[in-house]
């Protein structure tokens, strides 16, 4: 099980070890993809450019962006995931990366739990 916290400003967050460094990752339940990653991680995840997609943002804007396949360390293994890279410093985890997991966010105890429930 992956454990995380709800931050002081109400954001569910977990910590991931990537390239020998701890990274804070936000669980973004409004994002239906796998990952949005900082540009600074591009060279550490074997990113392969596969094409373009359009994305709808919360403010009603639509953008077009590059999409990559990356080798992403998650839950004790390396998974091949779809990712976009952005200038931000934050990792966003979308619901598709969690499709085999149960996500529990307890806003009272400020805890996050992610447990795999589908064995494939």
């Amino acid at each position, binding site marked *: 099980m992956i454990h995380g916290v709800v931050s002081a400003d109400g954001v569910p967050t977990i910590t991931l070890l990537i390239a020998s460094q701890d990274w804070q990752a936000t669980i*973004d*339940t*409004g*994002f*239906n*993809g796998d990952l*949005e990653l900082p540009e600074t991680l591009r060279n550490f995840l074997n990113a392969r*450019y*596969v*094409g*373009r*997609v*359009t*994305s*709808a*943002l*919360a*403010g009603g*804007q*639509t*953008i*077009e*962006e*590059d*999409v990559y*396949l990356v080798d992403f360390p998650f839950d004790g293994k390396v998974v*091949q*995931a*779809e990712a*976009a*890279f*952005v200038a931000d410093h934050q990792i*966003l985890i*979308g619901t*598709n990366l969690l499709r085999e997991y149960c996500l529990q966010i307890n806003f009272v105890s400020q805890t996050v739990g992610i447990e795999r429930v589908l064995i494939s």
Partner: protein
Amino acid sequence: MKHPDWTQADSREAKQIWGEYQKQHNLSDRIGQTAGIDPKNRRIWFGSSIRDIVLQRNTEGLHSPLFFQRVGSETYFRKGIRQ
């Protein structure tokens, strides 16, 4: 950011190809699937995800970039943030 291997013309062409394909085919049983459109040769691949399509094309030795659409949706990703 746009990859140097992709142009605005590629995007326009891919969207046009996809628009024409949707008019000519009943995609009701493909709702939720991923479509990958090649703007150069006008081929379209279908799969469960971008990764699935990439793996399909790898078996054919194809590695050129595609424009990905989600069948039944205006956009491929929905994001909960403002950029």
